[in-house]
């Protein structure tokens, strides 16, 4: 591989037709992921984080208009013909979905689906070889009795087991990039940690780069090297995990961190950010976080700030300097 990053997204935009003209769900995001690193994308529902990933994998409905650039190993994914991107999807790029129950075909056994994934990209492999590979994969994600398990249907698996199987399937063709869209959201808290550990271990062992999409800062905390915080279809702050957690310069990130209950402090009330994210049909003209921001001033409703270097992180906030250097605000 050359020195170019594994995945390089520049000014990615995705818009859908709305009742009065197109509405943009993703409004120009820039992200970079180096090989075998983990990038966390954090944001609330509707912040555009999943749409952005689906846009670059061409999984959005054909009514969506996508522009910008997304280079995977130097190849432009945006606008790539369907025939060509099919060779990459499931082979070089693996996907893990939020709900492992609905992400499996309910009428095929888990084994059959992994075999399908293998044979889709390796037409020469025999059924028998593909089966033993599938069993191997199931074993590698710590599924006990993989031989028997391969013959079972998705509904016979528990939630955590299903997500393990999903990971096994995503790894089937030894991808170099794994896109995990809320991989633990549908799981019990106790299982979440196991799944995250497993993903981290496998990604490290195999040198897989990973984009981890989540609304849970706690999920990316121990996993990601870099974090991008998304709000209203844009990246509002990006930096290394450490910088984001301890040195944030954006009031939204600050709010997110403050909303995480802390173990060190006794809390009676859970902290939240007042209000709801703006509807994509009626975005405020200026900073989209302004209506909920405790620091908002009249100028915030007029100009939508660009990302700029403030202190250590890249921040899109007009008043970032005032926050800079305050360190972690709560706890």
């Amino acid at each position, binding site marked *: 591989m050359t020195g170019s990053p594994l995945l390089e997204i520049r000014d990615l935009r995705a818009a859908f037709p709305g009742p009065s003209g197109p509405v943009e769900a993703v409004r120009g995001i820039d992200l970079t992921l180096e090989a075998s690193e983990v990038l966390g994308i954090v944001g609330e529902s509707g912040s555009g984080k999943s749409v952005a990933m689906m846009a670059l*994998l061409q*999984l959005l409905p054909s009514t969506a208009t996508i522009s910008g650039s997304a280079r995977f190993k130097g190849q432009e994914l945006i606008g790539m013909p369907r025939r060509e991107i*099919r*060779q*990459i*999807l*499931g*082979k070089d790029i693996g*996907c893990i*979905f*939020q*709900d492992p129950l*609905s*992400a*499996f*075909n*309910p*009428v*095929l056994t888990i084994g059959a689906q992994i075999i*399908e*994934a293998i044979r*889709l*990209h390796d037409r020469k492999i025999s059924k028998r070889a593909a089966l033993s590979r599938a069993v191997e994969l199931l074993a590698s994600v710590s599924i006990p009795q993989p031989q028997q398990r391969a*013959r079972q*249907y998705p*509904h016979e698996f528990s939630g955590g087991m299903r997500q393990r199987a999903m990971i096994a*399937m995503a790894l089937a063709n030894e991808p170099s990039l794994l896109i995990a869209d809320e991989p633990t959201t549908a799981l019990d808290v106790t299982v979440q940690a196991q799944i995250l550990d497993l993903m981290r271990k496998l990604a490290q062992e195999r040198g897989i780069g990973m984009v981890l999409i989540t609304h849970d800062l706690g999920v990316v905390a121990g996993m990601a090297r870099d974090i991008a915080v998304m709000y209203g279809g844009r990246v509002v702050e990006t930096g290394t995990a450490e910088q984001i957690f301890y040195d944030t310069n954006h009031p939204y990130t600050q709010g997110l961190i403050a909303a995480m209950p802390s173990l060190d402090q006794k809390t009676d009330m859970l902290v939240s950010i007042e209000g709801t994210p703006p509807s994509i049909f009626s975005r405020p003209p200026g900073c989209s976080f302004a209506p909920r921001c405790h620091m908002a001033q009249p100028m915030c409703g007029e100009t939508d700030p660009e990302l700029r270097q403030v202190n250590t992180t890249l921040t899109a906030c007009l008043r970032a300097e005032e926050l800079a250097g305050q360190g972690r605000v709560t706890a």
Partner: protein
Amino acid sequence: MSVASDIAKGDSGKVGQLFNFLNRLPITGKIGIVILLFWTVTVLTVQFWPIADPLMMAARRLQPPSGANWLGTDALGRDVFARTLHGAAYTIPVAVVVVVSAVVIGSVAGAAAGYLGGWTDSIIMRAADVTLSFPPILLAMTVAATLGPGLPNAAVAMIIVWWPIYARLMRAQVLEIRTREHVEAAIAGGAGKTRVLVVHILPLCWTPTLINATMDFGQVALLAASLSFIGLGAVPPSPEWGAMISEGASKFYSWWIAFGPGMAILSVVLATSFLGDGLRDLFDRRGPK
């Protein structure tokens, strides 16, 4: 969905699984199966049964039911009981051919419409709408009359009447299933359009079609008999049920002539309704039992 996989499940004992599945049917559904099994066996073996020749005319005309002629004899002295049983070999195969053809044609058209969308969708579904806008019996009569009397032509007419029902059913299913996450996951795994449709969408679509086809079977048998009744289906002297009832209608005081075929049609329609209802209860676990 889990029921569908219950059936598909297992490398061993598929027959046993099917039996277990059918065993969960309500009693009416089981009665339906028994009746349909009876008629199936009759269709396949009736020519070997030790009953009277359905076409043999005897001097004993218009005899009421007796020990010799269990359901009496018709205006030409033919044994109504034998004719009723032999009649199954006309009506039931026609109903099978019609339902299977309508399901195949309708499902392919509906799946294409739902999956491809756009022009394909518009053309196919408008054709279905036009067909469905006619009363079924009227359209079937018109087509059958145009093609000329005879069971094969009646079958063609009925397929034309029936395919749009399955097209609509399949289209609606495909539209729903294609938005499921596992379809998206398959696309994200690099599967092509055809593969997604055949492997990931269609296997989840057949339940409503199966239930509907079961229920429609009786209706198709009834329509086949209706066409024969008005002389557009089976031609004399075939012992077709509708044609027999037609003969009985002109000899109104010899009630037994129409009784046999009438009860036969009733049993088929009831049996398929029972079975269809039972299957729907088993497949659709959301609804009240």
